[in-house]
């Protein structure tokens, strides 16, 4: 394999774990090369200048090179300005990181997902917009990786009627039903990514949860269980 060198590639860190004494293995989402694995050598030293930068949710440019699947990080810089996630938004950030890790294959370029991801992070910093940001990202991610929801027509190829109700299943899509969980109005709003109606947000959450769980092939999201646990703990007392 020939040596590849990439310079100043916009990227976000999705996940990192310790490697040997002073190194890190990083799972990064780059704009033009998709999800890549990098080893950052010697960054966990006392006087390391890059340790502070190698954190999730910070917009970075990365340079790396290598012949094998695991590339070596050579340089990293921050792209100012950036907003640091606070409080509950951090947990939501972990959630979208896990989604990206699960739905994107390594080295599969998705500049569109990168753009959606960046937009979602900036929306997450506004606490009132968290739900909207998450639902928008989920819908966009599903569209980008080929699991997009058909929100205009139902299973029998009828146009979605805003006054009717629908059931949803991953295999068949939307099916009209009197006792359906999702109203046609919600589905039309989702198509337009319009979350001004509170009812739309509630239904969208259930719909996206069903869709995402269906595509995970029985392996649940760790961050979702975790957030649920935290919220439960918090409400208990």
């Amino acid at each position, binding site marked *: 394999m020939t040596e590849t060198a990439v310079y100043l590639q916009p990227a976000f860190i999705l*996940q990192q774990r310790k490697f040997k004494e002073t190194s890190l293995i990083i799972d990064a989402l780059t704009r033009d090369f998709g999800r890549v694995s990098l080893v950052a050598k010697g960054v966990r030293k006392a006087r390391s200048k890059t340790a502070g930068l190698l954190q999730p949710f910070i917009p970075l440019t990365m340079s790396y090179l290598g012949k094998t699947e695991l590339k070596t990080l050579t340089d990293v810089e921050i792209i100012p300005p950036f907003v640091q996630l606070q*409080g509950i938004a951090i947990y939501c950030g972990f959630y979208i990181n896990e989604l990206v890790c699960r739905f994107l294959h390594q080295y599969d370029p998705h500049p569109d997902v990168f753009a959606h991801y960046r937009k979602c992070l900036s929306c997450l910093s506004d606490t009132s917009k968290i739900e909207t940001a998450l639902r928008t990202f989920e819908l966009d991610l599903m569209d980008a990786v080929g699991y997009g929801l058909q929100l205009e027509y139902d299973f029998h190829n009828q146009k979605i009627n805003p006054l009717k109700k629908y059931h949803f299943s991953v295999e068949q899509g939307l099916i009209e039903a009197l006792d359906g969980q999702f109203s046609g109005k919600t589905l039309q709003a989702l198509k337009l990514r319009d979350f001004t109606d509170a009812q739309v947000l509630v239904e969208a959450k259930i719909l996206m949860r069903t869709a995402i769980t269906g595509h995970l092939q029985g392996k649940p999201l760790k961050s979702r269980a*975790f957030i649920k646990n935290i919220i439960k703990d*918090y409400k208990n007392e």
Partner: protein
Amino acid sequence: MQKKGLLGQLIQNLCCLPGVGPKTAQRMAFHLFQRDRNGAKLLAETLLQAIDKIGYCRQCRTLTEDSLCDICADSSRDSSVVCIVESPADAWVIEQAAIFKGHYFVLHGRLSPLGGIGPDELGLDLLEQRLRTGAIKELILATNSTVEGEATAYFIGELAGKHQVLASRIAHGVPMGGELEFIDSGTLSHAFNGRKEV
């Protein structure tokens, strides 16, 4: 690579230490048998005793051979201020700096949604019991300045708020003797956001 015999086994077992690979382990093993047999015996005995006796302090979860560690047992320390740290090593460092005269609480990790470490693994139920008694007036959150450390600090902060206990986060910014020219932009932005009136 499977080595035969006791010596091979010893070398392999020494590899469980951080920073020790096969070569270092080999050097250690040969040193112990060629030069320092007494030292080896002493090491083995101490290790056995330590493994047997050292456990967690029932109040702060740090490592100790008693049921209550020296810090928690010391009546001259302020028990109403509790410093939350990720590991016993962190508590040790703060103790050496001699800047803090309260009690500690050791988490032995940090909340990690993707690693599957939740509040239960960190002994937060124990901390909550202590918060509930009302004996704690302030929590100092000294978790690491990483995203996971922040997430942990936020969660414990909320927990403290629920029990009307003051929670504060240690400051991040320019290190002592640090020159601005050489500081990364992330640290600088922290330093600016947390600036103080002079």
